[in-house]
């Protein structure tokens, strides 16, 4: 019984990881501008890779390797999110205008106060 539960969990996590990777790839290819592409592509590393690693942890059982995998997950979460933040922020501050539908008035640029 425990075996079945474990396998189902592993399969579900793997599948969700694949879904996030697929979405990230499609989004990277299809989205119109930098900001829109940044959104799906950062999900690849955070949600996609992390759920696959979580599945591996559950599959392998507890050992020293699990600690290493957890460290990998932690730094993957951290670096991917911060990369997305840095790219988006520097693009916005250097004046990359977000995409808007043709014929629709774009939103006026936001005035952001420097802290």
């Amino acid at each position, binding site marked *: 019984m425990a075996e079945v539960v474990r396998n189902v969990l592993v399969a579900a996590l793997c599948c969700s990881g694949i879904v996030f990777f697929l979405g990230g790839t499609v989004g990277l290819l299809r989205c119109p501008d930098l900001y829109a592409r940044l959104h799906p592509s950062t999900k690849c590393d955070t949600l996609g890779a992390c759920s696959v690693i979580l599945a591996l942890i559950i599959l392998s059982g507890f050992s020293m390797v699990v600690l290493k995998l957890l460290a990998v997950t932690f*730094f993957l979460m*951290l*670096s991917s999110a*911060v990369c997305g*933040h*840095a790219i988006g*922020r*520097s693009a916005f*501050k*250097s004046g990359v205008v977000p995409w808007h539908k043709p014929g629709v008035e774009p939103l006026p640029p936001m005035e952001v106060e*420097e*802290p």
Partner: protein
Amino acid sequence: MKRLLVLVALAVIGVTLLYGIGKMPPMDSRASPDKTHVVPRYLGHGEEEAGAKNIITGVILNYRGYDTMGEVSVIFSALCAVIAILDREKKGRSRSGVDASRVRTSLIVTTVVRFSLPVVMLFAVYTMLHGEPSPGGGFQGGAIVGASIILFTIVFGLAVSTKRIPPGARVPMESVNMLGFLSMGFIGLAFGVQFLTYILPGLGVAAAETVRKLMLDVIELGIGIGGGIIFISIVFSMIREDRYELQQDVP
């Protein structure tokens, strides 16, 4: 006429190479020399002959020690070429993109970089020292060291980076990889055996084993630290814009 000569030369070389390829054993053939001689020797006797549990380290540092020494000197001569063409970064003349940028570095990025750099450094040292019993080694560890300092420079700017790693400490360390390798090689000569021999005669079995491990570690550390410093120096000498000013708000 010249074109004809080039054509003839290319044809001769091409036909020779094609003939050679035709004589080679087919891919995956069990009769090819690397399968009959090299692999069994490395896998069967590597551990006691080369003295490293990780067979790749044994091959790199022992069976192909001269080749690795050549690679190390290639990295060093790459640095020499870059400095010969670009010159070193000079105080008063250079500053990095982050110093020149109008966008201030975000607090999130600086915090995360400051938090993760020590961990990255720790991992680099682990990779260098663990090259002997597990995957890793000096070249990989050196790349990690170099990448982490380059990340620090991108985020905080060349001024802060130069303050943390002063050129007086950095420049002498650039040759550490060559010097480490050569000195370990000459230890063998001093004991009356061949260059790059790690098993020294005249010591007891246990002592010779310890000395061999220590020599391998010195070489790995030398390759790692020297390689990392060389990467840093190459990137620093490529950073070049007009003025050098300390930012006010850097930590």
